[in-house]
């Protein structure tokens, strides 16, 4: 079982320090991605999803960023202890990343052929002719028509969806084991979003790789995820298989998120919204970070940091209050 684990992040803490304050952007995150698995990291903007992803690749700018603690094990190898050279041979080669804004994430002065083949030439020892063939094949795989001609185009000549496909092709260039996709569809039109999601699913199936998909959109999660981690204010609030999360959510935050999803059964009714907003990472509340917005909060939530409660079958939630209540109902029965 252990060798099936691709990457595991253990109690990761990433702080951003300025001389007055310390923003605890990621505050003890633990999660795993197995081989050939699609895992979703869900949360509102500002909850630390992107920083988590960047720290896996060692791309958090230091300073002001600071990896304050924790471990990241990739195939048993601690990524945080690697020096620059070894980290470079992991980036793009074993772990690749697709960013949110395809327009700004592609270098405007190089052709897309240059940018795709660059990663190949760095990590794989193959001649330029083969590189070119490989680029064409990659572009075809991600669904770009007439790839031979597109190779010599500059990013500004492509549409938004095409650019994101190019980004994906770049990420696939060296056949990585893990692709981290950081909200890859947020900047795109809804119709294009759907195509890109299908593309991810297709890639995941045909190439047998793992995907860590970061999003704030629960609708996307149902489409793509095997397992889901719900993040809130720099910590994992709830984790489990997609069906567990969607059908038996055990954390008030997850419940709130689900309740605020529009759906057919709620037609004509007022949509729920979670009161308040995500706390500022530099000024988090004491105790449970969610307590100011929580409908179930009891006085102990103000002072005690909540522990993960195990519901079995890989379903965990960081809310002792609800855990006690469920236990009681089970006991009563």
């Amino acid at each position, binding site marked *: 079982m252990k060798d099936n684990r691709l990457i595991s992040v253990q109690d990761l803490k990433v702080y*951003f320090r*300025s*001389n*007055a*304050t310390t923003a605890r952007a990621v505050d003890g995150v633990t999660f795993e991605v197995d081989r050939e698995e699609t895992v979703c990291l869900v949360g509102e903007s500002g909850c630390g999803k992107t920083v988590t992803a960047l720290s896996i690749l060692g791309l958090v700018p230091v300073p*002001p960023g600071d990896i304050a603690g924790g471990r990241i094990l990739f195939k048993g190898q601690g990524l945080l202890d690697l020096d620059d050279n070894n980290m470079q041979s992991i980036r793009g080669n074993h772990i690749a990343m697709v960013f949110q804004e395809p327009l700004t994430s592609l270098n405007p002065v190089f052709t897309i052929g240059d940018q795709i083949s660059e990663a190949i030439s760095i990590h794989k020892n193959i001649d330029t002719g083969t590189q070119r063939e490989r680029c064409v094949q990659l572009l075809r795989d991600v669904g770009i028509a007439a790839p031979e001609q597109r190779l010599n185009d500059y990013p500004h000549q492509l549409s938004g969806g095409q650019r994101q496909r190019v980004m994906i092709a770049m990420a696939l260039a060296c056949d990585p084991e893990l692709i981290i996709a950081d909200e890859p569809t947020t900047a795109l039109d809804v119709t294009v979003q759907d195509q890109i999601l299908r593309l991810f699913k297709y890639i995941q199936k045909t190439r047998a790789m793992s995907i860590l998909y970061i999003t704030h959109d629960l609708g996307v999660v149902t489409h793509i995820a095997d397992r889901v981690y719900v993040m809130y204010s720099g910590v994992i609030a709830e984790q489990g298989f997609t069906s567990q999360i969607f059908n038996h959510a055990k954390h008030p935050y997850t419940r709130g998120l689900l309740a605020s999803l529009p759906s057919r059964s709620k037609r004509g009714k*007022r949509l729920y*919204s979670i*009161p*308040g*907003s*995500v*706390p*500022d990472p*530099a*000024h988090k509340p004491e105790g449970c970070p969610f307590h100011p917005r929580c409908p179930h909060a009891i006085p102990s939530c103000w002072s005690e940091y909540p522990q993960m409660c195990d519901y079995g079958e890989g379903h965990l939630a960081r809310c002792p209050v609800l855990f006690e209540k469920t236990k009681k109902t089970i006991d009563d029965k």
Partner: protein
Amino acid sequence: MKNSAQKEFKEDFQLEEPLAPKKTRFQEFWLIFRQNRLAIIGFFIFVLFFLSAIVGLVLTSGQDPLFDPARIRLQEKLLPPLAKPNLDSLAPEDVPAIGFYLMGTDDLGRDVFARMLQGAWVSLTVGFVAVGISVLIGIFLGGIAGYFGQHYMRINHIVLASLFIFGVGLIAVQSPHLGAACLVLGFLLICYQALTKRKPRKKSMPSWTRFLFKNAISVDTLIMRVVDIMLCFPSFFLILTVVALLPASIYNIMIVIGLTSWMGTTRFVRAEFLSLREQDFVAAVRALGVSNYRIIFRHMMPNAIAPVLVSATIGIATAILTEAGLSFLGFGVPPPHATWGNILSDGKRFIFDAPWLTFIPGIVILIVVLSFNLFGEGLRDVMNPKLRERH
């Protein structure tokens, strides 16, 4: 029914709380600014210079000033800094106020300290007035080009403008009658247009008048071409030419430096206005029916002004250097008035005998200009929103 709807609304309505304790703008400003030690030093020298220029003006002017920069003591010439005057050979009123020559004396025995104090005021006013002129012109033209740029000048506007320009020009070149005629004609044309604007336009306009109402050139193009033309002159050479042709006076220098350095500000303000115009908040206030005047001065100017102020701070430094350069070449403020440039220029002949005459003004100019530059750069960092976000 209505009540229940209201109640439901109240239950639904939530106040969005602020994310973090609020800091005032000034607090934020200071937090970033104080990290830049060089900028702080620059700021203090800036204040010191300001104060000493004002104090210097008071102490060195008037009938019987405390420090007289023009008092000549030939027997005391070329004394090094901190030298004591020879009290036996000196008339009592010639003895410097503080009992010794803080910065030595020059070749005519004048107290260099008093002259430097007088020069501080000159540098200060030259810097501020010249930059004031250039910033005002720059904001005005840049603002017009950026905000009203897409409007067109019609042929009749151009005819009018050229009538006035020719009129003024002709009066300046010794033919007042023709010039006055041009001005009067221009004035009559304005009156005529103001009158006809009220009335509905008649259909039976002769065809040549329609030509007058054709669009000729957009305001933006016009202003930017003027900027292009101004940029074709090598600036120091232009300033030198004009200053050499005009009678020597400190005001001419200020005005000329100001009139030849507004192009950068104009371009900048125009670019800023062009991008601000397209932003949603401007569209939003326009949708509220706010007047152009208010949009420009209340909503757009505050967003564009900060970088202009930064470049103005650095512009002051440049203007001080330019004035010193002009004085050095002998085109500056006429003697006996002392400026840092002409103290240096006079002193260069004695560079081996009396190096302080070169080094004191040189180093003082260096420090003041440096402080302006450092302060300006510090301000630029504070204004930079990317840096601010981190705090």
